[in-house]
């Protein structure tokens, strides 16, 4: 679904997967460019985790193809150590210290114990877990387990990192820390991140795919996806008259205007028919009209967001 240029680290084509009678994925096509941060958003039960599980090789491909890092099928021996994942709801060993678990994982990549210990310590430090590194996973809270999962996912030199809901259950400070980590990974790896926190994703991803009921509904650069739903919300000190609304609706670049009468003021939602760059000019034209007509503008906010796009594309429903 993505036609832009550049090397692809992941190509998914016609991917279908079912659990018994239930379709989890129904013909997914996806391409992810190298060294990008790719967002995968969708309601609960949309198929995000199944897609991750297929890419990581946890479950077998039933129909369709997945090519990872140069055309390898998931689970291919040449991918070992090159793909890492933060799985959803995967436990760590309860009675083995979290430090030893990370050292063990890094040793599996083929490096010696001393180097593995250094890297494990650095990874735990990156997620602020170094103080409890000598404890088993049994003492960790949900948020700590999530951070430990992130630590193991960034361990080593993975070229493709899959992060399934990396910030869910984290406090704001740690969520920010994880977001910064993800941004930092971009220079050395491609990151695919799924999240329900769409505003958060909007700040870090380059490309995004919206998935629902096992199908990709929209995919592309984040501006391409969100521009379909770019809008401006203006709140005035009073209700606008029909003529005033008409003035706003005929401005070039405006696709439609909806006026709501609120209790003590009026709110106008203007749908913009342009991409980010073009809509900036449209916004300027709207503001000029507002000033020229001396409309009592109180508040203005850009209503176009990944969240809006997501809700519009998925029909605004919650997860199953």
């Amino acid at each position, binding site marked *: 679904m993505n036609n832009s240029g550049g090397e692809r680290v992941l190509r998914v084509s016609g991917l279908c997967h079912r659990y018994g009678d239930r379709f989890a994925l129904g013909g997914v096509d996806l391409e992810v460019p190298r060294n990008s941060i790719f967002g995968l958003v969708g309601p609960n039960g949309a198929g995000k985790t199944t897609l991750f599980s297929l890419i990581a090789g946890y479950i077998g491909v039933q129909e369709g193809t997945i090519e990872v890092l140069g055309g390898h099928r998931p689970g291919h021996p040449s991918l070992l150590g090159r793909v890492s994942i933060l799985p959803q709801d995967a436990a760590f060993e309860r009675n083995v210290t979290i430090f030893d678990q990370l050292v063990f994982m890094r040793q*599996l990549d083929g490096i010696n114990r001393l180097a593995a210990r250094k890297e494990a310590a650095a990874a735990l430090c990156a997620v602020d877990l170094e103080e409890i590194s000598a404890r088993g996973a049994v003492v960790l809270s949900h948020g700590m387990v999530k951070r430990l999962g992130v630590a193991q996912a960034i361990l080593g030199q993975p070229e493709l990192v899959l992060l399934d809901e990396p910030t869910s259950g984290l406090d704001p400070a740690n969520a920010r820390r994880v977001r910064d980590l993800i941004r930092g990974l971009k220079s050395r790896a491609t990151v695919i991140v799924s999240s329900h926190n769409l505003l958060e994703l909007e700040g870090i991803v380059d490309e995004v795919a919206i998935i629902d009921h096992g199908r990709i509904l929209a995919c592309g650069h984040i501006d391409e996806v969100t521009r379909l739903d770019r809008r401006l919300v203006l709140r005035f000190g009073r209700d606008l008259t029909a003529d005033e609304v008409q003035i706003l609706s005929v401005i070039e670049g405006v696709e439609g205007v909806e006026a709501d009468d609120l209790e003590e003021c009026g709110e106008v939602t203007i749908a913009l028919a342009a991409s980010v760059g073009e809509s900036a000019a449209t916004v300027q034209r709207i503001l000029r009209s507002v000033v020229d007509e001396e409309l009592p503008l109180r508040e203005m906010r850009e209503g176009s967001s990944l969240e809006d796009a997501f809700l519009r594309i998925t029909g605004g429903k919650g997860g199953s």
Partner: protein
Amino acid sequence: MTAPQIRQVLLHAGHNLRHSMRSGNGVTFVVFSTFVGLGLANLLLEPLELGLIEDLEEFQKNLARGIGMALAMASLRGPASTLGQLFDQGQLIDISQWAQFLVVQQPMILSATFLLFGLVMPLLIPLGSFATIAVDAESGAFRHLLTRTRRWTLVFGRFLGALLLTALVLCALVATVVIYIRVQIPIYTWEALISWGGRGLLALLALSIPYVALSVLVSASVKSPRTALLASVIVVAGVPLIAFSAQNAWEPLGKLLYLLPWAYSHQLLHPDLANGVLAALACFGHGVVFLLAAIWVFERRDL
């Protein structure tokens, strides 16, 4: 197998050994096996220790008959009464010589202990191996490893870890029994005890290979560790029960015993070393089959 793969296998083996001890499964196995093993040895030793056996020759004769009957049943698998008659009439010469070898030529208490271990150990081994795969499959912990290691190295490594734990328990048990016999009943020399103890230990180690592999196979096939333990014990105990019951209805069904080493494990203590080696090779072959099946199942399993 490449050097990195061998390294991964060894890492998994060591990790499995440590993990089983830390998680408590291994400790339970060690404690329970030691308790049962020493208990069995004590059953045989106590009459001698307490001086209840006044006539050692008579005791030896009775023990030889008991062992001979057990060997006859294991080898010929006929009705006990018929085999008893044949044995008493001296018609089972080979079996009789075999029993004499175990009781007269070798330290009899040690021989009897090994035979008992051979019967009980297959039921205890699942305690130390049932969790090798099923625990992490249930918790999803494998998901952190599968992007770093090949599945077969994981299964093979964990099998080796479980085997190593079993071997350590057996070594400790046999060493304890040998030392105890030498100290409490000084009728055998160290040389005789160590020599026969070594042979018996090797036999038990060979016998443990297929049963550990079978537990790993069951562990790789089910998701719940409890189911894995239960299923392992049921298979180990169920095969001889079904085989012996079924052969009464139709004799060829007795061959079901060959599904597990029950059919030939007693040969490990045969006076002819060649028979013992052959039985050990059969154990090894059984183990390889079970292990390959475990790898095959795990390679195809959704995790």
